[in-house]
């Protein structure tokens, strides 16, 4: 019940957080310019803005991670100096970063106590934290195995650990930077219920997200950032997604995917009885079969960690497998010399990997070098037998970046200097421009702002309409539902079933994703929740 009793609190109490005139430059980049912001205690405040608008920077300053060049911070009405995170923690501020700050090979417990140990010996601290964690878990429905290693947890669970960390430090003010970027809708719903609980306890929450739906659903007030400046602060109740989108991007944005009906042609990809075992000897795909036709998008829905990543990697030639795959009727090697990405590309398969920063791009390479990653053997890029034609590559890349509206369209900039959304556009430009017979896309819009999402979705649809086959893997059910022509749900290495988008809904898909096929007697929420928890296997790296 947002609004009711906090409204009058707002007039009397001092703001939980007040920022005045915050500015921050990274070298020549002005990430924040003279920003002021007030957040009242016991409210949820949303911040939206394009990629690179400066949202994370602003919050990192509040958390003492970066030092502001200018400006003041007031916590609970008191002017507070926050030179480092220690000071922020003391001031009761907790933050869940966009890129989690967890020690991967530590247990949950170790991560939680790091920095707030009780004494020089760990034993007592660990025992105490175990107790508190149990209490917190019950209080807020934040179940995680305290002895699990972070690297073995799904991203959803990793995020819970981050929240637990903040709560364990008794944060009154909780900042969450794009918390739902990697969560399934169910996990996201769960998170928002937790946030509601926290708010009910009088805690203050700042939520950064690209999903306007979430802003509308949970926040009391919302601010919009654009190019380092705070352009508007509104009562959520008085605004609409369309207005926010326009404030963010500076133009009207189409929030719904607008697609023509599919015109499927002949079968391009046939997968039969695919089995994959990973490095640790765990079976990840246990006999998957499906097909994709030209001119259609097959969406694969599933909780992260149920094999869809492995499926993409096998198809993309990153991983070996057993079984049978045919593309355009020809068999594809799944092991040996001809099972690598180069061979796949030769067969007309293009692959937009789930993790653009780890796989899709060489972050230290310039944009133009990334624009040929995987296609560098293409004769078009060779000057002669020995040398590559860098000038030609650069020209072509510049044109293609122009077409895909990569900003800035400068092929000489290193990939790491582009914002997340633009990095994704570089990968898409590279893969789509080659007009492949089959496009594999993993999490195409993860962490990407709404302006870019619109563009990416349109590009994929254009490829489909050009008669190409597309396999779309996404944990965003909304994206799957709006983009796919058919939907296959994967659970624990098996395809649980196929549905048509108009004949199903999020709820049914959610059940399938939890491995529940018996739709006759829908189980109660707790069971789904628990099943989804169980479904979440080892996670992927947090997105970039």
């Amino acid at each position: 019940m947002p609004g009711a009793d906090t409204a009058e609190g707002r007039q009397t109490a001092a703001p939980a957080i007040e920022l005045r005139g915050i500015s921050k430059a990274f070298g020549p980049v002005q990430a924040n310019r003279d920003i002021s912001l007030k957040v009242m205690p016991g409210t949820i405040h949303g911040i939206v803005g394009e990629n690179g608008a400066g949202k994370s920077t602003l919050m990192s300053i509040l958390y003492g991670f970066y030092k502001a060049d200018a400006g003041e911070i007031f916590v609970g009405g008191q002017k507070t100096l926050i030179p480092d995170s220690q000071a922020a923690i003391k001031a009761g501020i907790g933050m869940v970063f966009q890129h989690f700050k967890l020690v991967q090979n530590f247990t949950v417990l170790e991560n939680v106590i790091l920095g707030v140990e009780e004494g020089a010996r760990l034993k007592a601290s660990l025992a105490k934290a175990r107790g508190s964690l149990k209490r917190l878990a019950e209080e807020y429905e934040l179940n995680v195995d305290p002895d699990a290693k972070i690297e073995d947890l799904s991203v959803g669970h990793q995020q819970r650990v981050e929240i637990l960390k903040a709560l364990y430090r008794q944060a009154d003010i909780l900042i969450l930077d794009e918390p739902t970027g990697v969560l399934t809708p169910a996990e996201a719903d769960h998170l928002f219920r937790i946030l509601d609980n926290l708010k009910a306890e009088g805690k203050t929450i700042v939520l950064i997200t690209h999903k306007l739906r979430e802003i509308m659903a949970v926040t009391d007030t919302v601010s919009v950032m654009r190019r380092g400046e705070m352009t508007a602060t509104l009562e959520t109740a008085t605004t609409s997604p369309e207005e926010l989108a326009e404030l963010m991007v500076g133009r009207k944005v189409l929030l719904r995917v607008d697609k023509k009906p599919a015109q499927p042609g002949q079968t391009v990809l046939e997968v039969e009885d695919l089995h994959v075992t990973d490095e640790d000897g765990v079976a990840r795909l246990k006999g998957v079969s499906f097909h994709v036709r030209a001119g259609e998008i097959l969406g694969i829905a599933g909780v992260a960690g149920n094999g869809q990543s492995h499926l993409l990697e096998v198809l993309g030639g990153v991983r070996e497998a057993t079984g049978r795959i045919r593309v355009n009727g020809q068999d594809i090697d799944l092991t040996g010399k001809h099972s690598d990405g180069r061979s796949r590309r030769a067969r007309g398969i293009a692959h937009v990997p789930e993790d653009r920063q780890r796989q899709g791009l060489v972050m230290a390479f310039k944009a133009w070098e990334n624009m040929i990653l995987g296609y560098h053997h293409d004769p078009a890029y060779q000057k002669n037998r020995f040398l590559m034609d860098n000038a030609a590559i650069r020209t072509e890349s510049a044109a293609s970046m122009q077409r895909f509206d990569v900003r800035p369209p400068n092929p000489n900039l290193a990939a790491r200097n582009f914002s997340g959304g633009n990095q994704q556009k570089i990968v898409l430009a590279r893969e789509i421009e080659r007009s492949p017979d089959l496009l594999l896309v993993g999490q195409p819009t993860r962490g990407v702002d709404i302006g870019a999402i619109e563009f990416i979705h349109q590009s994929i649809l254009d490829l489909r309409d050009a008669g190409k086959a597309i396999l779309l893997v996404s944990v965003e059910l909304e994206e799957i539902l709006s983009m796919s022509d058919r939907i296959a749900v994967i659970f624990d290495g098996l395809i649980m079933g196929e549905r048509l988008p108009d004949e199903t809904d999020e709820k049914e898909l959610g059940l399938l994703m939890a491995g529940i096929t018996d739709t006759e007697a829908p189980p109660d929420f707790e069971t789904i929740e628990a099943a989804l928890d169980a479904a979440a296997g080892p996670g992927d790296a947090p997105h970039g």
Partner: protein
Amino acid sequence: MDKMPRWADIVLIPVFSLVLAFLLSGLVIVAIGEDPVAAVKLMVTGALGSTYGWGYTLYYATNFLFTGLAFAVANHARLFNIGAEGQATLGGLGVAFVCLAIPWPHWALALPAAIIGGALFGAAWAFLPAWLQAKRGSHIVITTIMFNFIGASLLNYMLVNVMRPTGSMDPATARFPPGAHLPTLHDLLAVFGIPFSKAAPANISFLVAIAACVLVWLLIWRTRLGYEIRAQGHSEPAAVYAGIRPVRIVVLAMLISGALAGCMAVNNVMGEAERLVLNAVEGAGFIGIAVALMGRSHPFGVFLAAILFGFLYQGGAELALWTTIPRELIVVIQALVILFTGALDNMVRMPLEKLFLSMRKGRG
């Protein structure tokens, strides 16, 4: 988007760092009761003030060019090849075999053969560590350290028991036949009527080294293999995604690295000593690491750093010849140069960046 103009980064910072290193070296020289100004003068005139000085400076620089390039190529694939020392040792063996095997009629025939010999042996010595790293994950730093020791033993055995002429006191091979003697810079420049000191050992290998620089530059930045090496070096997952086979890259990069290190023998063994002696590499493999890192693994940077170290070696020799400054002091100066230009460069960069940033702001 840089904080500083490129020229400042490339010119100002090394110069300031060098100045700092020399200031500190000066203090050490004062501390042991010598005249630092005279010492620096002697070093500069001794190393750069005559064709004789240049001849030695370039001779040393040639050694460091090969080992520096060797390290740089491997480093582009994120392989820390600490084994240039051993690979250059083996390269010496290869060059010696080639030079002694045939009574070479002319150096123009012997040189390419020796390059191939040195490169093959150097590459061979790099192969096993590379293969073990690629296939078994055996850490390349350990294996190459071990191969340095094993290489020293092998050379010792070969020289003492196999290649030494009977009755010779010296654990060294026989002198190479005259047909395998390389022309020195004196001989080469004489063709163009340019006088150059006859005594200095700099020889045609210097040109080979420069050619190697250009080839490495082309390899790394202009070929598919170089592209793949760099991709693998920056991100293995991305390389695998792109269809690049890590095993192949690791092995190839190390073979090239070892071959380059092996080629050093063309300079010191064939060009200078004209026979193979024990410990012919004399730590050039380790200097190569510093040279490559200081040169930021770019052939041009490696070139500059190699010349700098050639200068330090020759300048140091002049100090040793004409003063009582102990030779270890030269090692100290080298250490300070490495430290300030290679590791403490940010000490100079940070204030400079601030300066440039405020200047830019001041302008607009």
